[in-house]
């Protein structure tokens, strides 16, 4: 099956989720401004998600970050409607998932999405190979073809030789590779990853992040990745949305979030980030005035690397070039370094 999906975008519009016995009764009040606390104390309903609006462009990795209880796992389950929303739209491609009937939803889940879970959720009575073919098996694909695709992805995630092992003969990291292979074998354009690496040891987590980033260069799927770990979010995300108490507090590229945190909540997160490895020169360059000065630095280079290049060659000025080598901006070593240092207002904000 072909991997070159141009990518299907996901657009979440005015999404609300209220948990409780009669959510419809309170949706208007919530839209009118009733707070989460009030809804909980007076009516014993929990506001899970409030007015979520996120546009996820096709073929890129969208990270949704938040602490436990922020509603991030609830949000990702709305994309394949494992949870039904109280109000709102989830547009995938040009279809509204919320309006699908049972058959349409089943077809949608079979062909458009695949999911990786925090607790792996492998079938314990099936071997690695039998787990990996699951998506194709229930689609009714011939067994030979199921196995062909499954074996390729098992090998691609580095599990050669483990095809006939049962999940609990494998370590956590290896089990999640099975989870990833199972999702990729499905060959759906959308990959939903719910805290997929959170249960793994830090080193194995890094390893799995690299596996995902490597694969993504090749498969270009629309990945929705849920995490509570900012480092992971910054490493993986093309775009990041930060969720708190069921609301999006900020969304944008990782550089926008690190450089311009919307409030103190996010400041407190990004304070610990190694800014030199996240922010690229594009964010600090000034428009070219006159001839480009100093050495050329490729657009997209992170500050740490460019500072090293500039200090190594003793240059205080440089210019940024685009992919074709055309100069697009000017760079001053002072600005580069000051952008790498955590600003004072972030320090004191804590």
């Amino acid at each position: 099956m072909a991997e070159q999906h141009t990518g299907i975008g996901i657009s979440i519009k005015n999404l609300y989720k209220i948990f409780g016995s009669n959510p419809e009764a309170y949706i208007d009040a919530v839209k009118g401004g009733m707070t989460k606390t009030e809804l909980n104390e007076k009516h014993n309903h929990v506001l899970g998600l409030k007015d979520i609006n996120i546009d996820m462009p096709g073929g890129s990795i969208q990270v949704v970050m938040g602490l436990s209880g922020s509603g991030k796992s609830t949000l990702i389950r709305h994309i394949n409607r494992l949870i039904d929303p109280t109000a709102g739209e989830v547009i995938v491609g040009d279809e509204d998932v919320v309006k699908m009937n049972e058959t349409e939803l089943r077809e949608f889940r079979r062909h458009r999405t695949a999911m990786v879970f925090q607790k792996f959720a492998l079938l314990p009575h099936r071997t690695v190979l039998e787990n990996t073919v699951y998506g194709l098996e229930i689609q009714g694909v011939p067994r030979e073809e199921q196995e062909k695709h499954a074996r390729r992805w098992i090998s691609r995630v580095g599990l050669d030789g483990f095809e006939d092992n049962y999940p609990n003969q494998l370590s956590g990291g290896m089990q999640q590779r099975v989870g990833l292979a199972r999702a990729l074998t499905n060959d759906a354009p959308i990959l939903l990853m719910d805290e997929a690496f959170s249960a793994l040891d830090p080193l194995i987590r890094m390893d799995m992040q690299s596996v995902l980033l490597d694969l993504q260069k090749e498969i270009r799927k629309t990945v929705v990745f849920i995490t509570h770990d900012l480092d992971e979010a910054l490493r993986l995300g093309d775009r990041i949305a930060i969720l708190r108490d069921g609301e999006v507090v900020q969304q944008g590229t990782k550089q926008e979030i690190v450089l311009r945190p919307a409030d103190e909540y996010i400041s407190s997160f990004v304070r610990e980030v190694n800014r030199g490895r996240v922010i690229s020169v594009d964010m600090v360059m000034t428009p070219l005035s006159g001839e480009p000065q100093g050495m050329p630095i490729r657009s997209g280079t992170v500050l740490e690397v460019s500072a090293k290049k500039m200090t190594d060659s003793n240059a205080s000025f440089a210019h940024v070039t685009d992919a074709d080598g055309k100069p697009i901006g000017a760079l001053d070593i002072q600005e580069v370094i000051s952008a790498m240092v955590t600003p004072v207002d972030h320090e004191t904000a804590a």
Partner: protein
Amino acid sequence: MEWLTEFPDLGTSTLRNIRLTVDGAFRDFTRAYGESIELLFEPVKWFLINSENFMTDMPWPLILGIVAVLVWIASRSWKITLSSVVVLIVIGLFGMWEDTMKTIAMTFVATVLAIIFGIPIGIGMSRSNRVQSVVNPILDIMQTMPSFVYLIPVIMLFGIGKVPGLIAVIIYAIPPIIRLTNLGIRLVDKDVLEAADAFGSSSWQRLKNVQMPLALPTIMAGINQTIMMALAMVVVASMVGVQGLGQQVLRAINNQYFTLGVLNGLAIVGVAIIFDRASQAYGQRLQRHTEVVHG
């Protein structure tokens, strides 16, 4: 003060009228539908008679061989297989071969029917809390109501014979398999079920690929219990005309034949142990995938 010491019941004549009305209505029902209901149970009778004939007509060495092979397939254990054969040989030496064969046939038929009806009912219960709340009290009644009580209407319908005995055995033996099928499916890990949903499983695929396989060890425990309870009922069943070891026990009770009673009782125990060890070992083997845990 008489109204305090005597419970104010409905009165003798009212109670007698109730009894007469219900009994009369049931007798009319029996007369009207008895034959068609009996016809309905014709296939069951056929199944039971053929199983019995198979067991009693088959040469005894062949039966020993079949039992050995089946126990081996289920348990993969020489110890269990060998003990089963020895137990059957001892039973045969003491002259109880034919009765034992009849009892095994009866237990087999009762268990097969209990599985055929019990598992779908258990699945239905697991899918709906409403069904569960209706079926549960019925199962409670089936397990606690003295079997002689529900034998009365059964005998009124069928008379004395194999079929009423079989029905009594099934009523008593079916609850564990229903309960444990329900429990097993309800205990299946929610995360795995969610994964099955996320890949677009239909509800049949969910049942076939996830719920039943993961509930199977629990269901096997239910089948084991059902077999044991069916064996425990053979004495009661013999009172309505089921032949086999139970009938001999009944004869021993009536005539105070101590040795006959003990021998036939021990034969029932022996058959029970063979069934139990073989089915438990099979249940254990089904869970092999959970044994090898990553260190």
